[in-house]
């Protein structure tokens, strides 16, 4: 690592400043894509398949075309593209069956919500009416919704040409699994379901394509505009320089705005065809059916331990429901579960296998955590299941197997080197907030009165700061891109600064944290630092915002560019003050000779000299700006400890979160308020998955949860007040010491909640549960544990959600071969 000089004093970094972005956002002066109207703009509506799997017999567009104000109706066969919707993973040595994925269906539809045609017209209302006049005749084909049934012999095939629904198998491991089981005194097996969820940002997807004289401007709700430009160039046969992609204010993404979607290609095609700008705005129902989903993994997990609690091995086979087609990273996402499969623990023998499966559903891809929430969930649920089998305190079991603080950097059995950590420390700090002995006394008293209170824990770690290229890129796991981040720091003649970042923040508050980093290093205030991003027409190429990478990779890049600017500023100051550059220091906003602060120069004075080119060192270029392309040596590895306390209404199955306490470590805080915000939102995402949210298809492949009435996103009224605290263990990977935090809460929280419910219900004989913990599901499991019959749960149609008999007995079939099917 190149040494990067730290500022002598930190005035702004570490402060919980309010977000620079907020005044415009909360006064309605933000500018989102849907706020924009270009001269002569047309509107586009998409005709979508109501069938989960069907041949397209015919498409009659005459009725739509006859309507006033309709300019064009485009169907799949009209498009002439060099390539379809891209998928960017080519794993060395693994064949991934990859279907052609065109922006509109050609001949056959394979999921409800797939685009069949688009209508382009004068008015955003008229195109929706016209879309209803596009008459599509379908000839239904057999549908498969359950990924385990899809793998069984004789299943309907989503893509006939592959002869199977198995997309690929990918594995990672280390050690010797035979040794793992032969050394184990206790082996616990579970089938852990991580059901399908939606990202559901407050702003759905929107684009405006404006194709003029060979030049395309694409305004888009994107987390990575530069990548979109690259893909568009390939599909349309255009050169990158003739495309500009602009992501203005973007209202949240949670991963779903990483992928490159059909609609931005279609709007561009329509703009080219009509010679007018074309806007498409997704409806919420379209978002539910036709924007990527997350999770949807069934994990067959086996863990072994010696009687004293020493874990001897962990094995997981993940059945990953990928849907019918791939978006940008679809088949790769389950691999991310494998990278984190060791958790916080020294596990000598590990094996993780991901099996991807086609089903007649929308694609899954990255949503907040992308594979890592699944990993934490299965590990931390298994730890508490194992502790129960061993009759051991679950925290003691964790402590016994934690990687010790002094062992970092620590290589785990799958070959990944954890940069830093203090797992005992975060758990110890958590327990200063949660008096466990007092809790157990209270729990026992409440049980006497029929109140079922439980506590569950999650001690989590994750791998983020997406980068480094050597690990993630083509010669690493096989993503077809570099994973550096760019920055340009430009000091203006009057001493304020503009920062261009290759990241594409969309709600994280990075304008504020980036400004804090720069302000300290230049001796100015955050108000004097403007942060620009999301526009391929300005600043250098960038990779975008996802994978909790923006601060650890993008922020470090900015710190490095700023350091280069400071280096030049010192040379100018040294020249003017007749001193050596190494004797210049920045203190109290002035560049001065060490020991003589009274004669110092402000940044404005130095920048003035650099632009007016007066009194500069001989031969020095004018101007004061620097660029960095930063590619780190390693990922970063945040961690923490969470505790959840719930009350379960045993008569109804309803769960009430009484307390949620967490201690997280993302290195030194740049802005603690922003960290709290990310943790609050992240935990809320996990609460949503555990208690409320599920993307639900019925057995016919119909999407049942197409609105927020049925897709139960929690509101503020449904979540507790979070109690957060931090430890700060600097990462050695970057000079800021920072690790990502955007996904941390989501990655951490689900097992803490699930474990707490199991802990509450153990006196009733419930030993294991799968998400989502709907009241009827929890109530049914209580009944089953008591040996009573239960009515069929309508929520269980259309997917492998069942406990497979493991609900009451705490055991059950746990290998895909034995347990497959319902």
């Amino acid at each position, binding site marked *: 690592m190149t040494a990067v000089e730290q500022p002598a004093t930190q005035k702004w970094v570490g402060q919980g400043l309010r977000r620079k972005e907020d005044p415009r956002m909360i006064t309605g002066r933000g500018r989102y894509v849907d706020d924009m109207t270009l001269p002569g703009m047309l509107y586009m509506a998409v005709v979508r398949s109501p069938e989960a799997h069907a041949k397209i017999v015919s498409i009659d567009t005459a009725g739509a075309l006859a309507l006033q104000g309709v300019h064009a109706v485009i169907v799949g066969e009209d498009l002439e593209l060099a390539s379809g919707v891209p998928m960017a993973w080519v794993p060395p040595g693994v064949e991934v069956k990859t279907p052609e994925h065109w922006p509109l269906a050609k001949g056959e539809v394979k999921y409800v919500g797939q685009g069949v045609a688009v209508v382009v017209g004068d008015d955003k209302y008229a195109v929706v*009416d016209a879309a209803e006049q596009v008459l599509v005749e379908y000839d239904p084909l057999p549908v498969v919704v359950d990924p385990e049934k899809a793998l069984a012999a004789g299943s309907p095939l989503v893509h006939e040409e592959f002869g199977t629904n198995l997309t690929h198998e990918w594995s990672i491991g280390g050690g010797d699994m035979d040794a793992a089981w032969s050394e184990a005194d206790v082996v616990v097996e579970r089938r852990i379901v991580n059901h399908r969820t939606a990202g559901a940002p407050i702003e759905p997807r929107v684009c405006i394509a404006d194709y003029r004289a060979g030049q395309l401007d694409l305004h888009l709700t994107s987390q990575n505009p530069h990548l979109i430009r690259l893909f568009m160039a390939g599909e349309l046969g255009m050169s990158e320089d003739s495309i500009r992609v602009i992501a203005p204010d973007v209202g949240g993404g949670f991963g779903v705005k990483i992928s490159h979607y059909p609609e931005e290609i279609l709007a561009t095609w329509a703009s080219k065809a009509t010679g007018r700008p074309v806007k498409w705005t997704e*409806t919420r129902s379209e978002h539910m059916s036709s924007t990527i989903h997350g999770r949807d993994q069934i994990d067959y997990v086996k863990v072994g331990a010696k009687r004293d609690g020493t874990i001897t091995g962990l094995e997981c086979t993940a059945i990953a429901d990928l849907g019918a087609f791939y978006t940008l990273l679809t088949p790769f996402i389950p691999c991310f579960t494998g990278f984190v499969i060791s958790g916080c623990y020294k596990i000598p023998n590990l094996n993780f296998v991901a099996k991807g499966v086609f089903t007649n559903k929308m694609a899954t891809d990255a949503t907040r955590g992308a594979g890592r929430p699944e990993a934490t969930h299965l590990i931390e649920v298994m730890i508490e299941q194992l502790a129960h089998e061993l009759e051991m305190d679950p925290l003691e079991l964790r402590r016994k197997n934690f990687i010790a603080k002094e062992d970092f950097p620590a290589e785990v059995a799958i070959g990944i080197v954890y940069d830093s950590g203090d797992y005992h420390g975060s758990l110890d700090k958590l327990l200063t907030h949660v008096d466990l002995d007092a809790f157990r006394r209270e729990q026992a008293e409440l049980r006497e009165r029929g109140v079922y209170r439980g506590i569950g824990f999650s001690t989590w770690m994750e791998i983020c700061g997406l980068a480094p290229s050597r690990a993630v890129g083509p010669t690493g796991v096989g993503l077809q891109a570099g994973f550096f981040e760019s920055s340009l720091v430009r000091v203006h003649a009057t001493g304020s600064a503009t920062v261009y970042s290759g990241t594409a923040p969309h709600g994280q508050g990075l304008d504020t944290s980036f400004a804090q980093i720069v302000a300290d290093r230049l001796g100015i205030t955050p108000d004097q630092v403007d942060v620009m991003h999301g526009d391929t027409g300005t600043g250098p190429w960038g990779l975008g915002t996802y994978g909790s990478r923006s601060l650890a990779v993008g922020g470090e890049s900015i710190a490095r560019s700023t350091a280069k600017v400071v280096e030049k500023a010192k040379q100018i100051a040294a020249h003017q003050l007749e001193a050596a550059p190494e004797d210049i220091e920045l203190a109290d906003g002035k560049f001065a000779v060490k020991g003589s602060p009274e004669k110092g120069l402000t940044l404005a004075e130095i920048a003035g000299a650099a632009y007016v080119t007066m009194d500069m060192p001989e031969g020095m270029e004018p101007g004061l700006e620097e660029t960095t392309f930063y590619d780190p040596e390693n990922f970063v590895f945040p961690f923490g400890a969470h505790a959840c306390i719930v009350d379960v209404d045993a008569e*109804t199955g309803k769960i009430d979160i009484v307390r949620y306490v967490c201690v997280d470590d993302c290195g030194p805080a740049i802005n603690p308020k922003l960290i709290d915000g990310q943790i609050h939102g992240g935990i809320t995402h996990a609460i949503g998955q555990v208690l409320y949210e599920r993307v*639900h298809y019925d057995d016919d492949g119909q999407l049942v949860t197409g609105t927020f009435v049925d897709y139960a996103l929690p*509101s503020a009224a449904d979540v507790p007040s979070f109690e957060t605290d931090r430890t700060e263990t600097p990462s050695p990977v970057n000079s800021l010491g920072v690790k990502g935090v955007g996904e941390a809460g989501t990655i951490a929280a689900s097992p803490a909640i699930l474990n707490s419910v199991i802990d509450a219900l153990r006196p009733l004989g419930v030993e294991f549960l799968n998400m989502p913990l*709907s009241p009827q599901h929890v109530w049914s499991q209580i009944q089953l544990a008591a040996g009573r019959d239960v009515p069929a749960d*309508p929520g269980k149609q259309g997917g492998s959600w069942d406990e497979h008999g493991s609900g009451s007995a705490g055991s059950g079939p746990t290998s895909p071969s034995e347990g497959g099917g319902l």
Partner: protein
Amino acid sequence: MIPAEFDYVAPTSLDEALSALREGGEDAKILAGGHSLLPLMKLRLAAPTLLVDLAGVPGLTGIERDDGGWRIGAMTPHIAMERETDLGLASVVARTIADPQVRHRGTIGGSLAHGDPASDQLAILLAYEGSVVIRGESGEREVPAAELFHDYLTTAVADGEVLTEVRLPALEGYAHGYEKFNRRQEDWAMVAVGALVKKGADGSCEDVRVGLTHMSSVPLRATAVEEALRGRPLDAGSIAAAAEHAADGTEPPADLNASADYKRHLARVLCRRALETAAAA
């Protein structure tokens, strides 16, 4: 999320509204708070050709007390009932409806005329044995709650008519309990039970009324519960025994979150709790 094309009028008198409805025919719809109708239109599950907005019609809002009862204008928003705590159970119930935004826009008359069996106040009107006033061009009639709800989303309010007022008896001496079960705070009730209990001088149950929400295609009275408890002591045993009848004869609609049998179970549990609350008050 874009409705089909429709016309909109905003009459300034009830007579104007009634003639607009007549001219609009069967595809004309009354717009009150819009919190049921507009989402249905945006999803294109409803496509009225004319909306007659009652917001500008005077005299349709407000809560008044007169000789032993309450008169509530049909356009009174839920929030006003929530704030009129002297309404007792109806006020407690109003506070549980959806979220503050909905309670500020949604109206009692709109809710009752829409006839969604998952809505809170329908079963409460039954339990109060209240009534509504319905105006048509041919005049005005008062319809008792027991005759108002015909089927799912179907009420005694005919095409061309306007529900103008809700009447609730004051029910002096009744205590109440309300138990609403839903997944999220803002959701419609999966099942809800409202109980009104009048304690006799000897502490026994002089009268009891129990309303059931979302246990059928229409709101229901739990008459078997009422019969089992009336005249009995208001102790835990009697209440529990009576509550066991809460689902008698019901055909609750199953949905994604609850089977019919689970709803019947919930009705019994919630009924017991609502009665216990009322009895303890």
